[in-house]
């Protein structure tokens, strides 16, 4: 896939076990410690809510996918802005650490990828961060 250059991608190894990282990604109280000022959404598929950034920006959020222990996918948009898809994928890393891959891209781009992949082996809309 040639589109990887058009997305924001971060690949970090965190100094914590996978279960602890997973809690930090899915517990609203813990999310509020790092992702935003307040997180008002339950992390289960189909849930909707809001995330308020430290600067006061409010984003509407839809939980697109929750694969326990593996991946959370959110769709969010601040008022009047382009909706984006955010995927947080965790994996074991050596030494009891945890790898976290973050991918964010405009939803419109995801649709374009899925359209291009119709008939192929790729199953849209998720762009899995290998």
């Amino acid at each position, binding site marked *: 896939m040639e589109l990887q250059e058009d997305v924001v991608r971060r690949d970090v190894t965190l100094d914590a076990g996978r279960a602890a990282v997973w809690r930090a990604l899915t517990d609203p109280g*813990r999310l509020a410690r790092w992702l935003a000022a307040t997180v008002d959404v339950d992390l289960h598929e189909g849930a909707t809510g809001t995330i308020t950034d430290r600067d006061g920006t409010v984003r509407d959020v839809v939980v697109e996918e929750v694969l326990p222990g593996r991946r959370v996918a959110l769709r969010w948009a601040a008022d009047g802005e382009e909706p*984006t898809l955010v995927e947080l994928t965790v994996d074991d890393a050596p030494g009891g650490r945890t790898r976290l891959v973050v991918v964010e891209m*405009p939803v419109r781009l995801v649709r374009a990828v899925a359209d291009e992949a119709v008939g192929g082996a790729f199953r849209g809309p998720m762009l899995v961060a290998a």
Partner: protein
Amino acid sequence: MNDARAGAVFHALSDPTRRRVVQALAQQGTLTASAIAADLPVSRQAVTKHLAALREAGLARATPSGREVRYELVPAPMSDAVDWITRTGAAWDDSLARLQRSLE
């Protein structure tokens, strides 16, 4: 920064043929749809459609020239897309640093 416009740019550039049209315009300056089609394995009609998508995203400009229309690139919106990537990436860097601290 206009995120909607950045989204339109990403969408326009998500198609491989459109990227080749952009490349041709970048390399050769002003071109007609026929001239672009001559260098690509697609019809002039297909090129015209791709050019329309690029114009919609603000990436290309059309100028009538006699009986033809000549197209050229408008580079500014690309920097919007780059700006979005830079800004969003920096926000994630900050968030991920906070995440690491919150796990300690």
